[in-house]
């Protein structure tokens, strides 16, 4: 099947602004956008830059805006998109080159919510016990691969890049609701910030974009509720 693939390109060594370049390709309908990008890179123009690694939706490298929505290039097929496909870098983040964006700020926000287990009690000789029900509470948010699709799809984030963003909240949620963790209070305080959970306007772009199917908005609201509860 013949598709027209438009890629938004930008080379900081040559360009002052990004521009669209169109490529015609013959592809299998079951091919993924990543395959198309590879076809361009390996057969037409090897200077095309995009991140990717695992090739099956597990490493979070290749989140990008595909036909106007954030998707992983390795997890969306041509038959889901049609004959006209456009690919652009994640919106709202500084573009380094072609489809590569600067993720440092994204990771800095992730770090800011203390995304690690805090438990100062001396560990027991065996595992810490946790019931299946206790574990189920935060199961969903352990799936995050930090691809950035959610945060960069969020209109609140576009408007105020200081917003800590859904991805960081998801990772805070993963610990706040872990029965073994003791750092929840502090995380809640961090997220009660002006740039914290209150910036979320329940827009749900994040949920639509998340390649791991995480119910991000639910996680955010559970954190908001915990903050309200704490201050009540």
């Amino acid at each position, binding site marked *: 099947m013949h598709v027209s693939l438009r890629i938004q390109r930008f080379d900081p060594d040559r360009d002052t602004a990004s521009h669209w370049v169109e490529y015609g390709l013959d592809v299998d309908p079951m091919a993924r956008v990543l395959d198309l990008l590879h076809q361009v890179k390996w057969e037409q123009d090897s200077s095309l830059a995009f991140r990717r690694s695992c090739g099956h939706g597990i490493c979070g490298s290749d989140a990008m805006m595909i036909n106007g929505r954030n998707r992983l290039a390795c997890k969306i097929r041509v038959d889901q998109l049609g004959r006209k496909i456009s690919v652009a870098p994640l919106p709202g983040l500084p573009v380094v080159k072609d489809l590569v964006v600067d993720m*440092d700020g994204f990771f800095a926000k992730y770090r*800011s919510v203390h995304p690690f287990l805090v438990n100062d009690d001396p560990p027991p000789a065996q595992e810490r016990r946790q019931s299946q029900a206790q574990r189920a509470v935060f199961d969903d948010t352990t799936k995050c691969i930090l691809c950035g699709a959610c945060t960069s799809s969020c209109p609140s984030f576009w*408007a*105020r890049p200081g917003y*800590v963003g859904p991805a960081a909240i998801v990772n805070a949620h993963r610990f706040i609701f872990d029965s073994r963790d003791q750092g929840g209070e502090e995380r*809640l305080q*961090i997220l009660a*910030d002006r740039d*914290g959970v*209150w910036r979320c306007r329940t827009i749900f772009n994040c949920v639509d974009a998340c390649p791991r199917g995480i119910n991000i908005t639910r996680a955010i609201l559970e954190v908001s509720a915990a903050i309200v509860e704490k201050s009540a």
Partner: protein
Amino acid sequence: MVMIDPRTAGRSRPQGSGFELFVWYLMRVTGVMLFVLALAHFSIMHFLFDPSQESASWIAARWGSLAWRVFDWTLLMMVLFHSFMGVRTVLLDYVHGTRARLLSMSTLYIVALILFAAGTAVVMTLPVVA
């Protein structure tokens, strides 16, 4: 070469903000109240009556009842708080730069105060016409 320390890049260490929590919470509380008050108000004004039947004296007559004064005043307070805090959110989203922000926020709050005062004045002080 300047190395960015990824630990500190991005945003400064945030402090919890009670004010934002307060606004978030009250937006919801006033929202629920407005659902009743504002819709009731609109229905009364347009469905039970019709603007063509209404006049200044008709309004004034209605305020002969204390209940209506309380109703209208509550509605007014709710709507002013809710809508100004709502617009504050919108402005904070789209107005960047410290100066522009300061300017827009002060204007907003001043207008809000004036309307609070003016509205209260009307509802409270209007003489009752028989």
